[in-house]
């Protein structure tokens, strides 16, 4: 499939570039999740899913990117898409169990060893 073919699957002809992220998420603006910007996204498969109804090039892109764990914000930056759009795409991928998303611990401070690793790591930079 050429890039222009895949594009045409996901962009409504009448929709300008501004609307494109919503076309991509097929009009679903709000994600069910409110993942933290540093939630780590990791693909559960090495094999990129094939394009089908509900799986577009952006979904495939995320699976390919997240062969190593990346923060939600990194995924959004690499795809040049707003965070909200990526959250919707993650819902789709999660429903198919193509990624795992791990939230940071919301309240507990990490233990001393983490602080020490950060401080020593920074010093060594």
């Amino acid at each position, binding site marked *: 499939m050429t890039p222009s073919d895949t594009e045409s699957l996901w962009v409504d002809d009448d929709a300008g570039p501004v609307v494109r992220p919503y076309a991509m998420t097929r009009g679903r603006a709000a994600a069910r999740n409110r993942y933290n910007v540093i939630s780590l996204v990791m693909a559960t498969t090495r094999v990129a899913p094939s394009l089908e109804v509900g799986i577009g090039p952006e979904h495939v892109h995320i699976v390919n990117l997240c062969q190593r764990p990346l*923060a939600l914000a990194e995924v959004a930056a690499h795809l040049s898409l707003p965070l*909200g759009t990526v959250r919707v795409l993650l819902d789709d991928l999660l429903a198919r169990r193509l990624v795992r998303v791990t939230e940071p611990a919301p309240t507990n401070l*990490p233990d001393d060893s983490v602080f020490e*690793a950060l401080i020593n790591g920074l010093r060594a930079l």
Partner: protein
Amino acid sequence: MDYELSEGDAGAVLPTAIKILIAGGFGVGKTTLVGAVSETKPLRTEEILSEQGVGVDDLTGVESKSTTTVAMDFGRISFGDDLVLYLFGTPGQDRFWFVWDELALGALGAVVLADTRRLADCFPSVDYFERHGLPFIVAVNCFDGARRYSLDEVKAALNLDPDVPVTLCDARERESSKDVLITLLQHVMKGRGAGRARQAVGS
């Protein structure tokens, strides 16, 4: 449908992800500091908000609503395979409180950058972190031509809690920016030792 799930990946150990905020007024050097210590150039991501900035819009009927895009710069520093530090510059405009809440949630602490020529620009950041109980330090970014104030003068002008560290920095310098982060980490560690429970922002 069947996707191949490789066993190794399913059990892969994820790194611990840590988030620190870099706050302060417009043009105070937030992105510069992020870039000075990060392993790549600062990345940029966006959140789309309703015009009031009260929350992420439900964009159904997007044509009829006016939206604002809030950009955030961030950087990453990996320490081996099991620890990664993310630095997020807060949006310079403090009317986007929703984005602040989202960024502050789960953050370890914050650096408030201050420019002594426009000290008042950092008041909203200081207020925010005090109100939400997120530990922070103040780093005075020394712009050329700025009259030098003593750190005590800055501390007094900001009416800071006596144990909040105030330090000088040059956000363009990696060593200086590293020192700022280390000062913050030591401060957070000390505060935790003193039993000051950190509250979850937004809860």
